[in-house]
């Protein structure tokens, strides 16, 4: 391959155009509240085909998982039998508390709060084949009432939030996605009578733990304490279960504390989710 002046000029111009397009579009999507109509149409069409393609792979995956789960069943069964009685007792307690909460809200004339939210179920049809861009594509969008920044949960806890939404599909940025333009998740740790607010600012891939810093106090945190969304910032509702405290360590400079959280949800194995469509009195 020979290089002459014209070819070099075309190469340089192509590089400039490519870099401009990549950086420009990244900045645009980071700031835009919605996506252009053409892209929405393209995303809907792509999601339609994606659903068709994902059907056989999902069946294959379910079969493989069933086989893997079969080996774990006996051990799990023993463990779960012990918990069933406790769950029944907890359910009765929750019902009583819910009733009491409703009555107290009525007394205080509180119609809606950040802990009230409605959900819609969705199926994961695709996942970005990339090592850092942890995004899922789900089969529900604007038509189902999903908006940008809507929290996404699986059966065990918070997994992320909607970053882009089209009519029939949405892109979900996982809680483990720590890219520069990804919004941080404000959470709180409840340790005994102490509540500590902070922001999830990192993810340790090897230990599968979220890192919480910018803590509001330096109080002592117990291992195993519950972590939930704080509702601060107004994007996520309060009280979505995130996980449990795995450890508390000093940060890289030894000045502040960092809390390591084991997420409740298995972020590597998500097949169906719940999208929060309404929070409080929206």
């Amino acid at each position, binding site marked *: 391959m020979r290089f002459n002046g014209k070819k070099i000029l075309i190469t340089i111009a192509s590089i400039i155009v490519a870099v401009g*397009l*990549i950086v420009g*579009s*990244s900045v645009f999507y980071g700031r835009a509240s919605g996506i252009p109509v053409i892209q929405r149409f393209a995303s809907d069409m792509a999601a339609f085909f994606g659903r068709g393609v*994902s059907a056989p792979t999902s069946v294959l995956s379910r079969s493989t998982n069933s086989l893997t789960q079969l080996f774990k069943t006996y051990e799990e069964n023993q463990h779960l039998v012990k918990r069933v009685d406790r769950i029944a007792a907890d359910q009765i307690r929750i019902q009583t508390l819910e009733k009491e909460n409703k009555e107290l809200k009525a007394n205080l004339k509180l119609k809606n709060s950040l802990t009230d939210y409605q959900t819609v179920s969705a199926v994961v049809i695709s996942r970005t084949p990339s090592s850092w*861009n942890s995004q899922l594509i789900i089969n529900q969008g604007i038509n189902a009432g999903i908006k940008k920044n809507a929290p996404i949960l699986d059966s065990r806890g918070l997994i992320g939030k909607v970053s882009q939404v089209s009519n029939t599909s949405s892109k979900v940025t996982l809680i483990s996605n720590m890219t520069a*333009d990804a919004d941080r998740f404000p959470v709180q740790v409840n340790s005994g009578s102490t509540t500590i607010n902070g922001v999830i600012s990192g993810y340790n891939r090897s230990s599968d733990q979220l890192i919480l810093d910018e803590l509001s106090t330096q109080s002592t945190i117990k291992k195993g304490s519950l972590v939930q969304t704080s509702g601060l910032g107004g994007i996520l509702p309060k009280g979505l279960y995130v996980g449990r405290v795995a450890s508390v360590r000093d940060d890289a400079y030894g000045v502040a504390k960092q809390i390591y959280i084991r997420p409740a949800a298995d972020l*590597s194995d998500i097949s169906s989710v719940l999208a929060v469509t309404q929070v409080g009195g929206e």
Partner: protein
Amino acid sequence: MNNRHVSTHRFFRPAIVYPVILIVLIFVDGSLMAAFSGFLSFANWTILPNLTFIGIFYTIHFRSDRHFHFWWWLVLLGLLFDLYYTQSIGSYLTAYLLSAYTVFLLDPHIPYRILSSFWTVATGLLVFYSLIYITGILTGEVNISLVNYLIFTVFPTIFINSLIEMIFYRPVESLTYIINS
């Protein structure tokens, strides 16, 4: 391989079949990642399915690129990937184009054998994932070091995808012959 004659069957025309296959492969990559993410990501290791690139390699290697507007379709594939999976336009478009061009330049100099094709695919994938890393830096998405990325993601990804390419080499060669002749 004689690829001069083109199938007259309406739905077997290379100009229809190859673009459709390549587009489907883009969705297959994502659905494989969603369905088997537990197997594909473990501890620090991540294996990224890239059947689309394998399809691109077969298209160039078996000279099927002469039967349809390959490079234009490649632009469309890259755009589709960016729009569907990412939050920036141009990353995968550039990566697919340049890695395909690398294969296009390299392939005629490599012996026409299965084992040799492993190295062509590996080189193409190395170019592909290097470009993805560079574009990731540009958009501020990269959160791992280059060394970790190469060791824990790129090399296992290249190995597995090149292995898949070798396994399907003969069946795809036969299929290509049927479509092109």
